[in-house]
Structure formats: structure tokens, C-alpha cells
């Protein structure tokens, strides 16, 4: 018994000693944690202010030479604080702190708001003065002031010159190929299995006496993928009307629904069967992603469509829809420009249009010179981009200079 008591007392004393030690350790501030204000670092020099380029007229660029204590000397600089005011004679309290940058940085873009009521408003065409302090541990340097500078807006963004050149080249190529197509020169377009399968799929639906489900995705009418899908929808509607079968078009966006209704109606009219068009065949479900999936999956499982066509903008619902279609035993044709969703469509659908193939579908189906011209221009531009990429890569490997990203960091002309 006494041994047990002895053991208990030993354990108790050990615990108490541990607790006391811990308390002592926590009450003593560690030597390194004590913030002793050091000597102020030397201030930055040669502070310049200028209008911020390529902006809406509410920005100023502040530039300075690093403090001698930034990464050298006493190495005491931690950051730089930037202040702004309208009057250089204002007391310190009226200077407004607009930003902080870490050591080693020599510039700061003060981008203000346009609205006078907002806290970070930066007035246009008004003299502005700036101060830059080098900040050390609990201290800051003497002030370095600069100004005045006025913010003005720019009428051309010089950083977008490459994009402008790209668009102009594309425009020239497009016009050239449209003219070639109009002259009757044959422009080859490689076969798209997914689009060629549409007729076969509609025929299958007719034989089985089951409807065709056409899903335009969850995008808005402004999405390029949705617009490309409208073209295919028009063709499918015409074929459906010719084969006298039925189609179901559930929509996730009311604007998309309105356009889809008009497209399907026109398809039926073009096929000479406007009376066969049913207004209820194109309907709005909901704008919410997963409720839309639930509704469409319910339709697939109840109606068991012979063919499901998914063309447009898709996100996480791609596999949910496509797998339900597999369960229903439908032939499935899908296409989207969302790279992350393509693998899901590839594994679950019979045919998949990859990325740009969706955009090419309208030209492929129509074979009109105007549409084929743009398609050809797109192919040639792709070749130009490829050649540029290989050339820049080779140049980089040979010279070692950053010729790929550097020209896009700042204007090179």
C-alpha cells in the first residue's frame, strides 16, 4: 500500500513540477519576441510620381530608389508605406495611407475608385502629393515626398497591341477566305463524327418512336458555346420535323429558352411542318445547376429518349447527365468548350465534340461560304500561333532570354 501511495505522490509531484515549469516559461517573455525599436532605416530616395498608364484616369504610379538599408547596410527595412494627400503642407494626420509594399519593391500603383463617395476615391486632373516611408522594426524612416502628379485617363491601352494585331490578322484572313469560298474554291473541312452521327441518331429515335433530348447546358445566351449550340439545335429541329419525331429541350436560362423556342419553331417551319411544333417541347426548368440536373435526369429516366444531345456550356452536371443517359440506354452526342468536362463526356457519350469542334459545327452543317471562310481563317491562325510558339521557344532555348513572357509584361516598342 505504501508503495502505491509513494508512487502516487511521486506522480503528483512530477505533475506539479511540470505545471510550475510551464507557468514559469509562459510568464517569461522570450528574449527574441521583445520588440525593441531599432534605429530608423534610411529613407528611400528619388521618389517620382506619374500618371498610371492605360487606366481610367484614377491611378498614379509612385516609384522610388530603395533605401540604403533595404537588403544592404543595416538590412533593417521590412516594408515601405505610401501616403497621399491633396496639399503637401497638410499635417501628418491628414496624409492618407494608400498602400504598403514589402522590401525590395520600388514601385506602387495607387489605383483609386471613380466614385467620390467611396473611401479609396482618387480624383482626376487634381494635383496629388505622395510620401514614401521605409519601415523597420517598430520605427520608420524620415519622409521622402514627391509631387504633384495628376491622374488622367488614356484612350488606348498600349498593353493590348498584340491582341489588336491578332484580331486584325484574323479579320484579314477571314475576309480572304470568305472571298475564296464565294468564288467557288473548295475549302476542305475534316469530317466531324459527332455531327455526322446526328442524322443517324434522329433516324434511330424515329424508328424507336421515342423523343430526342437536346440540352443547351447551363450557360447564358451570351456564352459562345450556347450560341454555337443554337445553330445545331436549328438543324436538329428541322430534321426532327422532317422525320416526324418529337424533341424535348429543357433550358436552364429564360433568355436561352426564348431563343431556343424561336430556333426550334423556325426549324419546323423550314421543314414545312410548322403545325407539328409544340410550344411545351422547349421549356424553362430552373437557373439553379443541380435542380436543373434533377429535372433533366428525371425526364431522361421517365421519357427514355432514344438520343440525348448535350451541346453548350457544361460544368459539374456533365457526368450526372451523361451517366443517366447511359442508364436510359440512349445514344449520346456531347460537345463543350469546357476542357475540364470533356473527359466526362468522352467516357460517357458515344460521340464528343472537343472544344472548337463545337464552334465548327455550324460551318460543317451549313457548308455556306461565309461560315467556311471563318473556319478556314481560324485554322490558318492556329497554324500561325503554332509557328510563333515554336519560334519563340527555340529563341528562348538558344538565347536564354525570356522572350515569351517579357513582351507581354510591358510594351516592347
Amino acid at each position, binding site marked *: 500500500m505504501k508503495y502505491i501511495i509513494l508512487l502516487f505522490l511521486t506522480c503528483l509531484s512530477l505533475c506539479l513540477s511540470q505545471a510550475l515549469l510551464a507557468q514559469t516559461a509562459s510568464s517569461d517573455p522570450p528574449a527574441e519576441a521583445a520588440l525593441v525599436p531599432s534605429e530608423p532605416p534610411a529613407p528611400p530616395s528619388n521618389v517620382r510620381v506619374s500618371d498610371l498608364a*492605360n487606366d*481610367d*484616369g484614377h491611378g498614379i504610379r509612385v516609384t522610388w530608389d530603395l533605401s540604403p538599408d533595404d537588403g544592404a547596410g543595416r538590412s533593417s527595412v521590412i516594408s515601405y508605406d505610401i501616403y497621399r494627400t491633396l496639399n503637401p503642407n497638410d499635417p501628418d494626420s491628414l496624409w492618407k495611407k494608400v498602400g504598403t509594399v514589402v522590401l525590395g519593391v520600388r514601385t506602387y500603383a495607387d489605383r483609386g475608385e471613380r466614385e467620390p463617395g467611396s473611401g479609396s476615391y482618387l480624383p*482626376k486632373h487634381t494635383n496629388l502629393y505622395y510620401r514614401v516611408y521605409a519601415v523597420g522594426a517598430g520605427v520608420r524612416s524620415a519622409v521622402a515626398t514627391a509631387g504633384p502628379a495628376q491622374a488622367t*485617363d*488614356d484612350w488606348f*491601352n498600349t498593353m*493590348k497591341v498584340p*491582341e489588336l494585331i*491578332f484580331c486584325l490578322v*484574323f479579320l484579314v484572313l*477571314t475576309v480572304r477566305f*470568305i472571298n475564296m469560298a464565294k468564288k467557288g474554291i473548295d475549302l476542305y473541312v475534316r469530317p466531324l463524327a459527332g455531327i455526322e452521327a446526328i442524322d443517324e441518331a434522329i433516324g434511330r429515335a424515329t424508328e424507336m418512336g421515342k423523343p430526342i433530348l437536346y440540352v443547351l447546358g447551363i450557360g*447564358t445566351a451570351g456564352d459562345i458555346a450556347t*450560341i*454555337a449550340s*443554337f*445553330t445545331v439545335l*436549328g438543324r436538329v429541329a428541322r430534321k426532327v420535323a422532317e422525320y416526324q419525331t418529337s424533341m424535348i429541350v429543357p*433550358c436552364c*436560362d*429564360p*433568355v436561352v*429558352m*426564348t*431563343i431556343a423556342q424561336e*430556333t426550334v*419553331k*423556325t*426549324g419546323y417551319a423550314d421543314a414545312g411542318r410548322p403545325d407539328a411544333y409544340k*410550344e*411545351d417541347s422547349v*421549356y*424553362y426548368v430552373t437557373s439553379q445547376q*443541380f435542380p436543373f*440536373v*434533377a429535372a433533366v435526369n428525371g425526364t431522361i429516366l*421517365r421519357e427514355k429518349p432514344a438520343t440525348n444531345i448535350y451541346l453548350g456550356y457544361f460544368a*459539374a452536371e456533365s*457526368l*450526372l447527365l451523361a*451517366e443517366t443517359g*447511359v442508364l436510359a440506354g440512349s445514344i449520346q452526342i456531347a460537345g463543350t*468548350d469546357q*476542357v475540364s468536362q*470533356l473527359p466526362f463526356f468522352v*467516357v*460517357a457519350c458515344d460521340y464528343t465534340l*472537343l*472544344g*472548337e469542334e463545337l*464552334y465548327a459545327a*455550324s460551318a460543317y452543317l451549313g457548308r455556306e461560304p461565309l*461560315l467556311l471562310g*471563318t*473556319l478556314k481563317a*481560324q485554322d490558318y*491562325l*492556329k497554324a500561325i*500561333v503554332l509557328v510563333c510558339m515554336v519560334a519563340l521557344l527555340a529563341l528562348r532555348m538558344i538565347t536564354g532570354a525570356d522572350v515569351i513572357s517579357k513582351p507581354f509584361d510591358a510594351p516592347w516598342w
Partner: protein
Amino acid sequence: MKQQIPLVLVFVFGVLLAIQYFVPSEPSQRFYEVALDGLTVIGIFAMVLGIWSQIHVGYNKIKRRAEDWQYSVVTLVSMFGMAFCGLSFMGGLNGPIFRQLYNNIFIPIQAAIFSLLAFYIASASYRAFRARSAVSTVLLVAALLLMLRVIPTGPLADPINQIGSWMLMVPNMAAKRAILIGVGLGSVATALKIVLGIERSYLGKD
């Protein structure tokens, strides 16, 4: 006339917004914001059409006693029920009944639908990874390596991790970028076709 006015509007706004992209000045930014606001307003008006479509389709199904018409009853009752509970005298969108319905019915149902994805990934993978051809065998091997990459494999962990990272960063990234470049060019081409009136499918006539 029905075709001409939308075509002119698309051309004018298309060209103006294309110019706006290159002009950073304040009036240009304000024009862009107004255009975006206009889009929102049109969307709100279109929502009325959407709700009307929902009611119309549901009501017709119930009236004709079409197959599975009971689902339409559930849809319409839920739609009107939620709308009623969201009215101001019921406490609005932060009212207790609306919150209860939203948090305890809507969100769990939504989560349940999303969770199906896990099972669908498994079933889709099973079909895709059957080694029926050389290509699907490559897919199977690549998928196996990537799956092994995220589980502890002892001394094999390092080489598997390196192979997996290489597959993700080199062949996978190259394919993704190729598709993205095509998508980017295709987007520009489609936008140009729409602005120039070459592509008119959105007008309801292809």
C-alpha cells in the same frame, strides 16, 4: 424588319464593345457597366417568361392528366409555396419558414444530387478503363498510376509520384493547352461571325 433591327443592334453593340476593350478611359468603362446593367435588366424580364413557361407546361400536364402529372403538382406547389414564404409579410427571404425550407429541404436535396457524382465517376471509370483496345489500355495504365499517386505505396511512392506529376504536367497539360488555344480562336471566330452578321442562328433562323 424582324431580322434587320436585331442584326443592326448586334453589329453596333458588338463593334462598340470590341472598341471598348481597347479603350481604358472613364467614359469607356462607364459604357461597359451600362451595357452589363442592360444585360441584367433583360435577364430579369426574361425570367418572367421562364416562370410563365414553367407554369404553362406544368398546368397543361395536370389538365391533360399526362403521364407522371403528379410531378408537375409537386413542382408548382413547391414553386408557389417558396415564393409565398419569401413574401415580406412572411418575413421575406430571411423569414423563419423560408429559411427552414431552404436550409432543410433545398440545400440537402441539392447536396444529394451533387453527391451522385462520386458514384457516377466510379461507374464511368469502370466502363472507360476496360482494356479493350490499345488506347483504352493506355488510359487504364495512366489512370492506375495517377490513382496510386495519392495513396501510400512505401518505397514506390517517389517514382510513382514523379511519373504521375510528369503525366499531369507534360502530356496532359499539352493536350489541355492545345484545346484551350483552339477554343480561344474559335471564340474569336464565332464572335466575329455574330458581329458581322454571318452567324444568325441566335435570331431563330440558321
